[in-house]
C-alpha cells in the first residue's frame, strides 16, 4: 500500500527505529503519499477513505479545497487511530516537512495505542466505516436519498449527546422496559372480529386501561437514573423503524469512536509535538534543515493573542512535567517549601521525568491533565491570563492573571470537553410519554435558536413532546416543544410549582 519514494522510505525506517529506541510503542504505521485533492477528501471524511454519503462532507471538502486554492491553509499531516495506523503525507512538501510529519505521526500513533481513553476504540474502524457506508447506501436504495438524508440530518443533530465517561466501561446497557399501556397486555386474543366486543367488552377494557394508567403513575420513574447516553437510549426506546435504528446506531458508533480524540486534543498534540521535536533535533535533522525545522515548528506552536493552541500548551506542559520529575519538584517537601531561592535551584537529580510523561500519556485526559499539572509557576512563566469582554469598550481585556482563575477557566472550557451536559431525566414525563431533558447548567446558557431546532429534531425521533429544563438569562425555565409550538414556563420561586409538581406525578 505504502507508496513512498526510496529516499522517504529510508527516512521512515530511520525515524521508526529512533521512535522505538526512545520508547515509543506504536502500531505498525502505513504512510501514504497523496495529492492535495485526496488529502482534502480524507480530511473531509475525518481521515477515512470511505464514509456514508452526506452533504456535510461535501461542505467540508468545499471549504478545505477553497481555502487551499486561495492559499489560506494547508494540511500537513493526518493520521487515524487504527491498527495498522494510517497516515498521509502530502505530495510536494519538502523532505524536511515529510520527516517532521512522520516523527509527529509516530507520536500520535503511540498515544492512540497506549492512552487508556483510546483502549476501547475499534481499531478496525476503517472497515467499520466502509460497512457503515454500505449499509447507508443500501437504505438509500430502498428508501430514497432524501428520506435517508433527512434522517441522518436528525441523527447528526443529536450526535454530541453521548456519555463520554462511559467510554471506559463500554456502552450503557438498557434493560428497563418502557412503561406503556399496551392493550395486548390485558386483552384476550380474539380470532374472529365479530367476537371481539363479546370477549373483551369495551367498558371493561376501558376501565382496566384506566386502572393500568393509574398504576403506572405509581411506578418508579423511567429511566430510573438520569441518562447521559441519550443516543443509546433513543436507539432502545424511540419508536423507530429498523433502518432508522440502524442509522442512529451508526452515528452513535462513529460519535463514540471520535470522542477520545476530542477528550485528549491537548495531550495528544502536546505528546506528538514533544516527540517530533525530540526525534528531529536529536536524531534526524541535518545541518541544512535546522532553520526550516525551527520555522515550521514555531509556526505550529504559535499561540495567537487570546487564542488557545493545544500544541503549545500540550508540549509546554509535557516538558514541564519532565523537568519537574527529573529534578524532583514534586511531593510534600516541594509543596511545602516557601523559599523562592531554594525552589529555583531545586534539583534532586531523580531523573524520573521520562518515565513520568509516559505514565501521564497513558492515564490522563485533557481535563485531568490540566487539573493536575497546570501549576502557578507554569502560568507565570507562560504569561497566561484570563480575558473578558469589556462591555463598555466592546473589546476583550485582560481580566486577571490569578492562577486559580486561569485554571478554573481552562477547566471550565474543557469540562465535558466543550459540550453542554444534557441528561434524560424522564422519558414518561407527566405520564404522557413525553421526554424531559435537563441541561446541567454550569454558567453558560445554551444557544436558544439551536436549542429550539435541536428539540424539534428530537421530537421527530421521539414523536412525543420534548421538554427541556435549563437556565436561560439567569432564570430556571422549562422549554417545551410539542411538535407544533414552543412554549416556556418559568421555574423560579412561585412559578416553581408549575412544572416541578407535575414531575412528581410520575415519580
Amino acid at each position, binding site marked *: 500500500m505504502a507508496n513512498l519514494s526510496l529516499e522517504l522510505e529510508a527516512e521512515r525506517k530511520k525515524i521508526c527505529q529512533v521512535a522505538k529506541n526512545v520508547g515509543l510503542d506504536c502500531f505498525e504505521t502505513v504512510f501514504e503519499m497523496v495529492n492535495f485533492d485526496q488529502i*482534502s*477528501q480524507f480530511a*473531509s471524511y475525518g481521515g477515512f477513505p470511505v*464514509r456514508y*454519503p*452526506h*452533504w*456535510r*462532507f*461535501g*461542505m467540508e*471538502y*468545499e*471549504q478545505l479545497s477553497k481555502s487551499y486554492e486561495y492559499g489560506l491553509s494547508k494540511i500537513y499531516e493526518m493520521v487515524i487511530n487504527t491498527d495498522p495506523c494510517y497516515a498521509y503525507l502530502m505530495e510536494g512538501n519538502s523532505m524536511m516537512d515529510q520527516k517532521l510529519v512522520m516523527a509527529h505521526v509516530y507520536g500520535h500513533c503511540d498515544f492512540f495505542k497506549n492512552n487508556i481513553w483510546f483502549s476501547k476504540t475499534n481499531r478496525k474502524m476503517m472497515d467499520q466505516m466502509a460497512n457503515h457506508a454500505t449499509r447507508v447506501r443500501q437504505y438509500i436504495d430502498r428508501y430514497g436519498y432524501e428520506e435517508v*438524508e433527512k434522517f441522518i440530518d436528525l441523527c*447528526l*443533530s*443529536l*450526535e*454530541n449527546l453521548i456519555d463520554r465517561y462511559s467510554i471506559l466501561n463500554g456502552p450503557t446497557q438498557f434493560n428497563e422496559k418502557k412503561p406503556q399501556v399496551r392493550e395486548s397486555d390485558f386483552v384476550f386474543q380474539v380470532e374472529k372480529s365479530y367476537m371481539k366486543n363479546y370477549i373483551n367488552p369495551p367498558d371493561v377494557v376501558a376501565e382496566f386501561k384506566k386502572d393500568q394508567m393509574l398504576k403506572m403513575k405509581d411506578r418508579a420513574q423511567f429511566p430510573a437514573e438520569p441518562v447521559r447516553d441519550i443516543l443509546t437510549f433513543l436507539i432502545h426506546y424511540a419508536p423507530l423503524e429498523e433502518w432508522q435504528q440502524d442509522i442512529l446506531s451508526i452515528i452513535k458508533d462513529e460519535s463514540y469512536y471520535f470522542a477520545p480524540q*476530542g477528550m485528549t*486534543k491537548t495531550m495528544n498534540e502536546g505528546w506528538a509535538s514533544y516527540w517530533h521535536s525530540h526525534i528531529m533535533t536529536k536524531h534526524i535533522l541535518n545541518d541544512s534543515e535546522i532553520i526550516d525545522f525551527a520555522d515550521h515548528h514555531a509556526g505550529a506552536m504559535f*499561540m*495567537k*493573542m*487570546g*487564542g*488557545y493552541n493545544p500544541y503549545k500548551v500540550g508540549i509546554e506542559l509535557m516538558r514541564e512535567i519532565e523537568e519537574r520529575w527529573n529534578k524532583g519538584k514534586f511531593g510534600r517537601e516541594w509543596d511545602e517549601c516557601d523559599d523562592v531561592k531554594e525552589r529555583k535551584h531545586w534539583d534532586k537529580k531523580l531523573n524520573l521525568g521520562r518515565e513520568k510523561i509516559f505514565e501521564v500519556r497513558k492515564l490522563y485526559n485533557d481535563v485531568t491533565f490540566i487539573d493536575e499539572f497546570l501549576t502557578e509557576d507554569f502560568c507565570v512563566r507562560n*504569561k*497566561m*491570563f*484570563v*480575558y*473578558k*469582554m*469589556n462591555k463598555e469598550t466592546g473589546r*476583550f*481585556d*485582560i*481580566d486577571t*492573571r490569578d492562577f486559580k482563575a*486561569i485554571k478554573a*477557566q*481552562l477547566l471550565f*472550557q*474543557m469540562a465535558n*470537553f*466543550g*459540550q*453542554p451536559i*444534557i441528561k434524560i431525566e424522564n422519558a414518561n414525563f407527566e405520564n404522557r410519554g413525553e421526554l424531559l431533558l435537563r441541561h446541567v447548567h454550569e*454558567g*453558560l*446558557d*445554551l*444557544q436558544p*435558536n*439551536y*436549542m429550539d431546532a*435541536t428539540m424539534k429534531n428530537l421530537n421527530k425521533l421521539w414523536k412525543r413532546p420534548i421538554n427541556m429544563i435549563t437556565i436561560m438569562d439567569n432564570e430556571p425555565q422549562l422549554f417545551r416543544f410539542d411538535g407544533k409550538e414552543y412554549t416556556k414556563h418559568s421555574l423560579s420561586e412561585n412559578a416553581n410549582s408549575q412544572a416541578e409538581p407535575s414531575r412528581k406525578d410520575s415519580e
Partner: protein
Amino acid sequence: MPIREDQNRFKNIVKGKVRDDFKKYVTNGELIGKREDEFVKIPLPRIDIPTFRYGPKQDQQGVGQGEGDGEPQQGQGQGQQGSGKGEAGENAGEHMLEVEISLEELAEILGEKLQLPKILPKGTANLMTEKTRYSGIAPVGPEGLRKFKQTYKKALSRYISSGNYDPNDPVIIPIRADYQYRTVKKTQKPHTKAVVIYMMDVSGSMGEEQKEIVRLESFWINTWLKKHYKGLDTRFIIHDAAAKEVDENTFFKTSESGGTLISSAYKLCQQIIEAEYPTDEWNIYPFHFSDGDNWSGEDTRLCVQLIKEYFLPRVNVFSYGQVESKYGSGQFLKDLQKEFGDDDQVTLSQIESREKILDSIKDFLGKGK
C-alpha cells in the same frame, strides 16, 4: 472520487437555499457588486446542523497568553473570542459561506421562480451560421475514424439476417461492406444576436434609490437575455433635456438637474440602431426607465409617434419602466397606457419600490418576446 457526490449534493442544497431566498437576493444590490464574469458570488449563512451547544452572548471570557501591560482595564489581551477548542463562545450564525453560482444557473432560477417563458428570437430564419461536427456516419473513410460499435452492429445484423448467427458461438467477422466511419456533418445554426439599449432619465427627480432599482432590474434583465442570446450587447443612454450615450458605470452614477425631454433619448436610440444594428440581424430590446415626467404633452406625442412608427416595426419589444419617486407625476405611463394599452409589443411596468422588482421583471419578460 466519492466526495464529489457529497460536494454536488451540498451544492444542490445551496442552490435550493438561493432559490428559497431568491427575492432577498433580487433586491440586494450587494450581490451584483460581486459579480465576476460568468459567476456571481452569493453570501450565505453557513448551513449548519443544530445541536445543543453553548450560546455566545454571555460573559465572554477565556484564557490567553502574552504580555499585556498588567492593567486590568487596558490589556493587550483583546483577541478572538472563545478559546478552549474553539467551541465555547464561537459565535454561530456569523460564518458566511460564499458560494459561486453561474449566471446561467441564476437565470434558470429566475425563470423558474417567475415562470418566464422562453424567448423566441425573431428573424433567425435568414441568418444561419454553418458549423461542421463529426457526428455523421459514412461507409468510407480513414481507418483512424472507424467506429467500432456501428461496424459491429452492422455486421451483427448481417449475420442475423443471413441466418448465420449462432448464439452459442457468437463470432462476428465484419467484411468491408460493414465498415462504418465517422464523418463531418454540416449543421445550420441560427445565429442570434441581441442588443439591449437602456435609457434612463437622470433629471433631478430620479434619486439614488430609483437608480439602484434600475440597476438591479437591468442586471436581471441582462441575466435572462444572456441565457437566450449568445452575443448580447448592452448600450446605455442617459437623458435629461438632451440625451447622450455613456458607459455602464456613468449610467448609474450620473445625476443631472434640469428638465426632461424623453424624445431626445428615443431619437438617440434610433440613431444607434440605424447606425449599428441592422434589424434583420439583431434582436433589439429598448428599455426606458423614468419617473414619468415629461417636459410637455407635445414631446410625449412625439415619443408615442416614434414608438409607433420607428420602434415597433423593428424591435422585439419596447419596454418602459416607471420608477416611483416623490417628485414624479407619473403622467408618461398613463399616456403610454392609453396609447398602447393592449399592444403586445409594448410592455409597461410600474415599480413602486424594491419589493416590486420581481413583479416588474415578470412584466417585462413574461411575454416571451
